[in-house]
């Protein structure tokens, strides 16, 4: 069959600058460069991951969009035409990686933050204490105290287990299998140093990371991979994964080629077999069933740690979250439709789910209306790109946020969206040893820690400007947000006024 598909990118190599060291050829895991008497690109294989550009000692390489023009068409755009070619040739579902790249509204960018002027003083975070500490877990409905004769008192309410975070940012669930072990190592070390959490994702936790358990949320997903008593007992918290923003309502599928020795041990399945995560948990067909699994896990960990539930942001997310909280979840992670993934059908990623901003506001509202907001912490995820997004999420009602894509970008990810190929040239979403070595866990941990530190400093800066000295004071305080360029209905859902009001 004649291949109709033009290449996406062109690799340009300046002959005068190229010193023919061939480093680019060795580093290109997509085999887009070969050396004859000079470096010769195969444009059709280039994914614009920029590995060659980054390693070229003489700056001789540039990657540009293929200049070949299709006739301008706002309806049948280049990507749509190419997808039809691909599917007509192979007859399969389009697969992709990372989060939704379509130009849907990003509500974070329509929200502006307040600041204190004259009537309420702002605070200088450089000189005054600024509190980002956050506790995840079920809070009591009331506090009871015992007062003794001498005027002293003691708390008599038994508190449910809580996790202390030094910053309201945790790492999102990314499985060992989707990402490499070195990435998990970097996440674990950074989480420990920053006083926060990583999330194992659904592929188990490598034995060498059990010692980081206090900084790890472990997942129980429909495939139940790598779950045994030690896994549940070592963790800081357990999260039942129902859904993921990039793929609401569908299962997962780690191909057999990726189930190598260490992954097989960690997932506790034989080498080379496909790791199938069914779309639903087959012991959960209702809220009552969810409650049954939540309490099975609580029994297994003897009520010593929070048990949460992760769901995708879908149309009825508010009602579902209410059920999840009533089912006994101590925290609810809501993953918006722009959330990342290692592999998902493109059609699902780009068309299913709703934005995290709307979902978060709706859930927070609903739980408040029902008087159960305190019964569970809310974690928002699904494309948190900056400290401003974190702060806006907290103001909309989140207790904390989870970052996945941002964390991988900190490790070098260039957002080429080829995670599912297992060829990641930056060593992040691959299990090929020659590639995984490209992430140094210590250096990676440093970068991740730096990112958390930088965002935390910025959050303190904004809190100071707001005249607040604690992130707790901002939680759910939508009065401190204003909208620009949104419709009345959108503002109503977000619970914010327009700028100027």
């Amino acid at each position, binding site marked *: 069959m004649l291949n109709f598909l033009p290449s996406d990118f062109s690799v340009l190599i300046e002959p005068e600058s190229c010193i023919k060291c061939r480093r680019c050829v060795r580093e290109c895991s997509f085999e887009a460069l070969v050396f004859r008497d000079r470096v010769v690109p195969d444009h059709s294989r280039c994914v614009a991951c920029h590995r060659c550009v980054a390693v070229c000692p003489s700056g001789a390489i540039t990657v540009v969009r293929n200049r070949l023009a299709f006739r301008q068409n706002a309806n049948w755009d280049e990507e749509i035409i190419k997808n039809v070619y*691909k*599917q007509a*040739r*192979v*007859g*399969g*579902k*389009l*697969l992709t990686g990372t989060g939704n790249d379509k130009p849907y509204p990003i509500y974070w960018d329509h929200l502006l933050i307040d600041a204190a002027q004259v009537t309420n003083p702002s605070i200088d975070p450089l000189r005054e204490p600024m509190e980002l500490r956050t506790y995840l877990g079920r809070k009591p409905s009331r506090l009871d105290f015992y007062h003794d004769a001498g005027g002293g008192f003691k708390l008599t309410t038994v508190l449910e287990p809580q996790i202390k975070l030094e910053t309201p940012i945790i790492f999102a669930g990314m499985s060992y299998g989707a990402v490499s072990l070195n990435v998990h190592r970097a996440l674990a070390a950074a989480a420990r140093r920053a006083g926060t959490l990583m999330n194992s994702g659904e592929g188990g936790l490598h034995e060498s990371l059990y010692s980081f358990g206090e900084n790890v949320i472990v997942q*129980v997903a429909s*495939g*139940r991979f790598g*779950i*045994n*008593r030690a896994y*549940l007992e070592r963790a800081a918290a357990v999260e039942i994964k129902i859904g993921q923003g990039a793929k609401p309502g569908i299962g997962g*599928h780690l*191909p*057999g080629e990726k189930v190598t020795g260490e992954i*097989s041990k960690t997932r*506790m*399945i*034989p080498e*080379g*077999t*496909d790791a*199938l995560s*069914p779309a639903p948990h*087959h*012991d959960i067909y209702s809220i009552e069933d969810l409650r*049954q*699994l939540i*309490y*099975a*896990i609580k*029994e*297994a*960990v*003897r*009520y010593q740690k929070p048990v949460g539930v992760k769901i995708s942001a879908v149309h009825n997310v508010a009602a579902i979250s209410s059920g999840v909280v009533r089912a006994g979840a101590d925290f609810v992670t809501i993953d918006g439709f722009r959330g990342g993934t290692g592999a998902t*059908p493109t059609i699902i990623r780009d068309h299913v789910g709703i934005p995290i901003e709307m979902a978060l506001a709706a859930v927070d509202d609903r739980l408040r209306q029902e008087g159960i907001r305190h019964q569970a912490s809310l974690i928002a995820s699904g494309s948190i790109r900056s400290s401003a997004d974190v702060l806006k999420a907290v103001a909309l009602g989140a207790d904390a946020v989870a970052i996945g894509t941002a964390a991988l970008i900190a490790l070098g990810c260039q957002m080429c969206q080829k995670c*599912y*190929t297992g060829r990641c040239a930056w060593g992040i979403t691959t299990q090929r040893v020659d590639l995984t070595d490209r992430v140094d866990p210590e250096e990676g941990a440093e970068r991740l820690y730096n990112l958390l530190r930088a965002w935390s400093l910025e959050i303190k800066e904004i809190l100071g400007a707001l005249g607040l000295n604690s992130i707790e004071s901002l939680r759910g305080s939508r009065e401190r947000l204003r909208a620009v360029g949104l419709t009345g209905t959108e503002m109503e859902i977000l619970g914010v006024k327009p700028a100027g009001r």
Partner: protein
Amino acid sequence: MALVKHDARGLSFRELNERLHRLVADGIDIIDLVNVNGHRYIGTGLAKPVRLNIYGTPGSDLGAFMDGPEIRVNGSGQDAIGNTMNSGAIIINGDAGNVLGLSMRGGKIFVRGNVGHRVGIHIKAFAEQVPRIIVGGVAGDFFGEYMAGGRMILLGLDRRAGQPVVGDYVGTGMHGGTIYIRGKVEEHQLGKEVGLVEMTEEDYAVLQEDLAEFTACFNLSLPEIMREPFAKLVPLSHRPYGQLYVY
């Protein structure tokens, strides 16, 4: 051997399980639990090879995440028995409900009577751990769905005339392990990812050994059970969902 009898009447599942934990911590290794009536999660989180003899009807998730104990139920069980179990044994004299043995990775579950739907869903083997489910009676639909490893044996004893031994969609999505069904299984009952293959001598040796254990538990006659032929089901591929994508 330290043995106690414990009355479950009037206790919530949390209270009952907390008491079990304390008894086990005190070194008790055989516990007779009487008046069990819908208490969930019995045996969950117990990590010692203790023996629990249950009298009554335990609730769902009996032995969920269990690692070591042996539970004998003198009565019937409910749903999700042995959920994500790692090791140990659950032996049920009566019937059991749906999703029995969901995602179990090791140990054994023996049921004398009938079981519900989606039994043995996604059970998987790993290294020396080979989970086994043996059912004396009949099973509902989706028996061995998504099965990834281990052994499931269905005997179809005490059937009414014309009653099928198993429901439809047997082994749908199966990609590992073996299912043995005593009697006849029709092609239309199978999921499209599994196939019927000839029984070998090796298979009969495996059955002989497993069923010797099973018949001893319930006072059944092994030769009588072995008299009828068995059907063997295996996955057609270890990669049933490989060819669905385009990059």
